[in-house]
């Protein structure tokens, strides 16, 4: 392939993967900035969404019905908030305690998936099978479909956060808890819905990536780390920053994998995180917290 074709392939892959990362990382960033919840279970939630999708699909053989995995994960998020996080909110060291709880929660989800489905790999069937040819370049239709779905969802998420009343309330709570209370906002409900949305974003990322790559119960670990790199790189709570960082990290990841080998791609991403932490710890678009 020519250099132009190589670059095109990298760009297209990076865009599809970057969009999936963006969904995942935006969920993580929302929980972090709104609830001070550093969710180490985010990778497991991602894979949980993919497994629920596969389970419904296998049971019903109905692709549309399989998407009910998304509201199921939303309700799961609200239930987890009500059962666990809400009680921890006003306690001492709640950030650390909640982070540890999410670590255990993530491990529990992995273990349960392992018990139920076994450690074997699963794969969500491609939504549309086939290739699109541009010159000598053949692009899997699935990449294009995923890019459009992700982009559509990112636009919807942006509109929700910046142009709806509820999105405004979520941003307000993230900025200042006391001021939000003084305005009559029901913080607990907003927190619960935010956890639900955060979990949904992770599960959608899981479903989309599960239609490209095979996965098993522990496949959420590396996406979790990459999401952290993105959130730190972009700045906690910054929509634009997270979006830009997602595509940069995806480009680095795919590019380094293509040119210097797959085993280097994670190393490059980690190196990026260390550099950002050293140079600008609050991210490229983030404000000092």
């Amino acid at each position, binding site marked *: 392939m020519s250099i132009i074709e190589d670059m095109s392939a990298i760009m297209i892959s990076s865009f599809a993967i970057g969009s999936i990362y963006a969904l995942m990382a935006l969920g993580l960033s929302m929980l972090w900035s709104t609830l001070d919840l550093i969710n180490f279970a985010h990778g497991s939630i991602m894979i949980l969404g993919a497994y629920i999708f596969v389970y419904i699909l296998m049971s019903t053989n109905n692709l549309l019905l399989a998407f009910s995995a998304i509201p199921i994960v939303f309700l799961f998020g609200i239930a987890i908030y009500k059962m666990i996080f809400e009680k921890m909110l006003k306690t001492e060291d709640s950030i650390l305690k909640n982070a540890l709880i999410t670590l255990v929660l993530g491990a529990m989800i992995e273990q349960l998936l392992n018990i139920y489905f076994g450690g074997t790999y699963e794969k969500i069937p491609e939504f549309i099978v086939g290739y699109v040819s541009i010159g000598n370049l053949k692009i899997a239709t699935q990449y294009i479909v995923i890019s459009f779905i992700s982009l559509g969802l990112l636009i919807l998420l942006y509109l929700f956060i910046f142009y709806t*009343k509820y999105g*405004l*309330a979520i*941003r*307000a709570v993230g*900025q*200042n808890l*006391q*001021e*939000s*209370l*003084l*305005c*009559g*906002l*029901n*913080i607990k409900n907003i927190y619960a819905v935010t956890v639900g949305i955060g979990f949904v974003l992770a599960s959608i990322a899981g479903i989309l990536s599960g239609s490209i790559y095979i996965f098993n119960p522990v496949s959420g670990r590396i996406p979790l780390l990459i999401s952290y790199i993105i959130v730190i790189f972009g700045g906690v709570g910054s929509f634009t920053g997270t979006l830009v960082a997602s595509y940069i990290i995806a480009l680095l990841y795919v590019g380094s994998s293509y040119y210097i080998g797959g085993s280097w791609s994670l190393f490059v991403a980690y190196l990026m995180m260390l550099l950002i932490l050293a140079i600008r710890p609050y991210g490229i678009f983030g*404000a000092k917290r």
Partner: protein
Amino acid sequence: MHLLELIDVAIGYEAVKIINNISLYIDEEEIIAIIGPNGHGKSTLLKGIVRLNTIHHGKILFRGIDISAKEPHEVAKLGVKYVPETGGYFPYMSIMENLKIGGYHLQSYDFKIRLKEIEEIFPWIKHRYMQVANTLSGGERKMLSIARALISKPEILLLDEPSLGLAPRAKQEIKKAITSIINNTKISIILTESDLTMVKDLANKIFLLKNGKLKEIEIDKISGNLEEYLI
């Protein structure tokens, strides 16, 4: 039945009582000022009313409903709005977004009507809706915090040191705005303030909060300098 009544209330933090056995009431369209030395519990009292501080004992009745065990957002939704001495706005949001959050529970139609009323009290605001709050001057920020509380049409406004830290000109603007609120709305106000000229000009009743005791000072009998009450 009074609009708001505190009956034998003790307020403080989880483990510490700051003020004890306070009783106070306010009726409709009344303006009450609470003065006193710093650190004697003026802000604690107002924060207690909106449940940001702990009520150790006693009752706080709003239109006969006991609000002493309610959540802060429930008290705000009922119509008791507190404007803190610092803050009172979302610094990274525009003026319009701040007002939208202040009027979160209003329907779109009511919000537009309320916005017109806010523009009458704070005429400068309508030309600068998209300006981010942390780029405003100190006086403008204070006015925004009052506007944010006022837009939901509360029945009682609790103003905590509205002129604190402001330059004389900004103080005059705040005083003018509060006077306009008093003249144009039927709202009741509890005000804590260290500028005693402002207190004398605005309040119907003045209370002194000192050493945890609240005592009414008869305005007619006040002669000379009020500064002695701040020591």
